[in-house]
């Protein structure tokens, strides 16, 4: 019999397998300590507790099952070819037990998951409402008093906030890992999110619904500040006392960094240093020297002229920029010189 010829190797393989399994079981323990971004909302703590509970429980059950098969592998290894085997077909009592116990564990997880989820989805009363717009590939935020910004989502600490979100193009998803919240942002309706940040600081915002080339660079931050600072921020003119170039730089940081760099380095779109005054070659075989009007047109209606070797992917900014911001951007781009 063929199986007979590798009886010696059987033992070695069995032992090697056991070592591999034990090694792998230790893996999760090593990384457990740093698993989460540290929580910054009350709901985060609840989510984390549930997360640790289910993972420790899973690890326990996993150890039992893997332990059982390692034990069987050792005990019932084929020692000779005529080794007798059990003829147990089934065991109703055992089978019912191991069907019912998982059932109750799963129902428990469902119920707990639902209760916390329900809390997540119940809006705070008198929350500060902020409108959020997603578009390829940046987020911008509009406050009730008309204040607009694309630099960061500024919110006061310890204050309930409601985000009313919609998309200008495809589906995006608004995700703040430190708050443990996420919601898809749709082009044809509003969706909403609630949170109450309990720590001051900057927290990452990611887009988590694939939305094209710049999906990975559709990044933003929640800037949680003290109530006094926030009240000062919301009531001041963002551009007061700034030069044109400084205004342009501010707008650029919120709106343009997902695709453009301020060097000559290409990202999704061209690097902008030295663009002004250079000769641009287009898909339609023609070319022109970039002047103020060309830059203005390229921002407001980018599809009119597509530069060779670049995709026609830029979002048109017509209607999204104030005149002051438009001019600022033009001046800022003019100021960008290639580094020597």
């Amino acid at each position: 019999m063929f199986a007979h010829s590798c009886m010696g190797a059987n033992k070695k393989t069995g032992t090697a397998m056991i070592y591999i399994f034990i090694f792998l079981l230790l893996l999760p323990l090593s990384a457990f300590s740093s698993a989460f971004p540290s929580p910054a909302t009350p709901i985060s703590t609840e989510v984390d507790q549930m997360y640790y509970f289910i993972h420790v429980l899973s690890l326990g059950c996993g150890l039992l099952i893997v332990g059982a098969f390692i034990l069987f592998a050792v005990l019932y290894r084929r020692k000779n070819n005529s080794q007798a085997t059990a003829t147990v077909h089934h065991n109703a009592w055992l089978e019912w037990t191991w069907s019912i116990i998982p059932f109750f564990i799963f129902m428990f997880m469902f119920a707990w998951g639902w209760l916390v989820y329900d809390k997540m989805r119940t809006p705070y009363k008198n929350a500060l409402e902020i409108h959020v717009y997603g578009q390829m590939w940046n987020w911008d935020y509009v406050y009730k008093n008309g204040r607009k910004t694309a630099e960061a989502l500024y919110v006061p600490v310890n204050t309930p906030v409601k985000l009313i979100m919609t998309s200008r193009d495809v589906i995006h998803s608004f995700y703040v890992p430190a708050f443990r919240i996420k919601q898809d942002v749709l082009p044809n309706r509003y969706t909403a999110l609630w949170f109450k940040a309990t720590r001051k600081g900057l927290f990452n915002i990611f887009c988590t619904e694939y939305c094209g080339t710049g999906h990975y660079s559709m990044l933003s931050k929640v800037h949680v500040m003290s109530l006094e600072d926030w009240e000062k921020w919301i009531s001041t003119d963002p551009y007061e006392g700034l030069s044109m170039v400084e205004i342009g730089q501010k707008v650029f940081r919120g709106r343009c960094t997902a695709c453009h760099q301020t060097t000559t380095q290409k990202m999704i779109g061209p690097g902008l240093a030295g663009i002004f005054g250079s000769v641009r070659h287009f898909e339609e075989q023609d070319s022109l020297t970039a002047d103020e009007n060309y830059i203005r047109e390229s921002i407001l209606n980018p599809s009119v002229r597509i530069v060779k070797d670049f995709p026609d992917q830029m979002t048109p900014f017509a209607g999204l920029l104030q005149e002051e911001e438009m001019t600022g951007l033009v001046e800022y781009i003019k100021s960008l010189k290639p580094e020597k």
Partner: protein
Amino acid sequence: MKNYLNEKTGLWSWLSTLDHKRIGLLYLFSVLTFFFIGGIFALLLRLELFTVGETIMGPEAYNQIMTLHGVMMVFMVIIPGVPAIFGNFFLPLQIGAKDVAFPRLNLLSWYLLMTGALVAIVSVVTGGVDTGWTFYTPYSIRTDNGTIWVVVGAFIMGFSSILTGLNFIVTVHKLRAPGMGFFKMPLFVWGIYSTAVIQVLATPVLAITLLLLTLERMFGIGIFDPKLGGDPVLFQHFFWFYSHPAVYIMILPAMGIVSELMATFSRNNIFGYKAIAFSSVGIALVSFFVWGHHMFVSGQSDAANFLFSIITMLVGVPTAIKVFNWVSTMYKGSLSFETPFLYALGFIFVFLIGGMTGIVLATLALDVHVHDTYYVVAHFHYVMVGGTLFPLVGAIFYWFPKMFGKMYSELLGRTAFALIFLGFNVTFFPLFFAGTQGMPRRYYDYIKPYETLNQISTVGSWLISAGFLLVLIAIIHSLLKGKKAPDNPWDGRTLEWQTQSPPIHENFEKQPEVTRGPYER
């Protein structure tokens, strides 16, 4: 000795064959080819993610390769994988039949798969597709490149799947050997049968969805595009109504293979035969009512989330039952650790991790945080690769002596397994942590804190590919230099081991009759 391999020769005898075994090998060859191409894509993706910033390619190339990797691995490898290769080859053998019920339809199915695959691959030439394998609207409507080719390709491949499923259902009902009642069928047959039901019922929904998407793109009919008055989330409902059951198209026959391997290499009766059989059917039925768990944060109502969460939890029960039964089959057995059995044990280990993290994802409050992060990427690779590919490779080694009449080298087989198993865990386990820390999926680039985890993962991808290369070497080595295989090298009890290796043209010299259970000794 006459057998199905040498009965006729020449390329045309293969391309026009009606023999289910030869068609099985056609699928084996094509699926393995797709798998190696898809695998190279995966390696490129992992290499790009090795460091922050551009490593080897830009974002457009990355997104296109990511899409191709997904489309190939899902539609051309794991969906046709186990049912079309091993279902074709061993379903008739295991039920003591001469062939499947409709041999010509069977050949047509293979041609449909190849046509669909070719059409999908045309997209690469016409500028690439960057939608991901899920084709979510409205992005897939706006993006101006080869999407339509891939969608039409997937549409055609869907018919291959439907026809194969239909063929298997009829075969199981009509062509069982005398004496083989439903509860005397091997568990692999139960797995294939449950899958076939899903293929026939769910795939048409995908076909309709892809057709609507094509009509929308070509003629501007507003179905999913909000600009035309459509609803993009409707697409997600349609898509997952198929694609969730599709997960079980992949996993159920793979579970069938695991049952065969556990019984044979434990030389034992399978523990809880009926429980395993019914749980396959149970999973198949419940699978139609859980699609919404892909959409917990899509904006669907909280009431829908409540229902989809609780029903999804129910899938866990029959799945857990299967795992307990497999482990119990080892109890008081006579275990021999040849390569196929190692894949079965490896499957149980990774499938446990895949299954348990599935419970995490079904828990609403937890899903909100890890949804669309690398946690999900890790979870589905544990279920898809660990759950489907491990049994598939195990099946190649298990049935290799029967298919080709040659033994393979245990040394090569076991070393390859060790590399694949270790490499797989090193590749995907760190991704659970990346996801928990908030790293979103489908990101061409990531922020610095995620770098270490990504580097571990990339190193794992080299180990796993070394393992798969070794599998290829083992196969070639065995075809060239393998010892002649006996008819029943593993002391298996199911009917395929009662005919010669490799089998003759119509399988059995005389019609087998069945008097006992499939695994009784």
